[in-house]
């Protein structure tokens, strides 16, 4: 068999595989619940890294960590970021799990190895074709202090303790109903509510 014919057969086989995979995917449908594959994650991450200007990557955080700044930033994070990223940065939230791609576990190396400038740029400018919005306002450039403080807090995430998490939970955006449920649960845990009761939330088991 000629070399040209072999090449043609290989190309046809590859095309058949691609068409078959595409047909299978289209028939199955696309869901945001899926996890991106390793290859897709690699390609997306590579493109994203290219999207951060080298100048921004080398920006230094003008703030140094202190308990006051971390407390301020944790409140900001709990109010603005935790709905997708979770208070502990794990991304283990209802919204986080439903996004495609999923928010990363920010305690891990993938986020922690990024430079302060990269983290700042990502918060300010968001990530295209993902759930990460651009939180920066036009004209602030590299000088939004609240964003730099968030970068400090992201660095602190791997060392977050239970008391800090508990405090952040109180600062998460909640509906009145959720606050009422939370209060009832806390009272129960403290022994201030009887074991048998009639008041139940709509998703509390045992009604």
């Amino acid at each position, binding site marked *: 068999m000629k070399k040209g014919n072999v090449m043609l057969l290989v190309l046809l086989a590859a095309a058949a595989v691609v068409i078959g995979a595409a047909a299978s995917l289209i028939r199955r449908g696309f869901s945001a619940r*899926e996890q991106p594959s390793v290859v*897709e994650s690699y390609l997306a991450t590579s493109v994203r890294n290219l999207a951060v200007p080298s100048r921004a990557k080398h920006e230094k955080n003008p703030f140094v960590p202190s308990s006051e700044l971390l407390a301020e930033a944790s409140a900001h994070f709990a109010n603005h970021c935790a709905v997708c990223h979770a208070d502990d940065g794990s991304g283990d939230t209802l919204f986080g799990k439903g996004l495609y791609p999923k928010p990363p576990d920010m305690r891990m190396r993938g986020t922690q190895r990024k430079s302060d400038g990269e983290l700042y740029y990502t918060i300010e400018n968001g990530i295209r074709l993902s759930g990460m919005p651009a939180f920066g306002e036009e004209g602030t450039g590299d000088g939004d202090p609240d964003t730099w403080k968030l970068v400090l807090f992201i660095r602190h995430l791997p060392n977050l303790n*239970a008391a800090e998490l*508990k405090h952040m939970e109180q600062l998460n955006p909640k509906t009145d109903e959720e606050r009422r449920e939370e209060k009832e649960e806390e009272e129960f845990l403290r022994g201030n509510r009887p074991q048998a009761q009639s008041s139940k939330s709509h*998703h509390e088991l045992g009604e």
Partner: protein
Amino acid sequence: MTYKLAVLACIMLFANLAFAHGNEKHVIGTVTKVSQGSVTVETTASTTVEVTIISDTKFTKGDSSATPKDLLVGDRVVIHAVPTEDGKLIAHTVQIGVAKASVQSH
């Protein structure tokens, strides 16, 4: 063009299957049994519910983090759990009360 097609082909070929996610349920009550991988709770409405504990389940007691070993029969608990399609409840968080439950008559 060839590169773009190759990227698209890679993405399609390596796409993974979906995993399920449901609404969280709150289980509030008193621990009646602790087993390897599960906890049984008598809820405040006097029903019995078994919840599966997994390695990712987070435990807290008061303001401190806790472990499955801290969970004892008689403890008040609030468990946030995700129901699976086969009717099981998988614990996401287990909050252990600082107050012990009083003894109930049945």
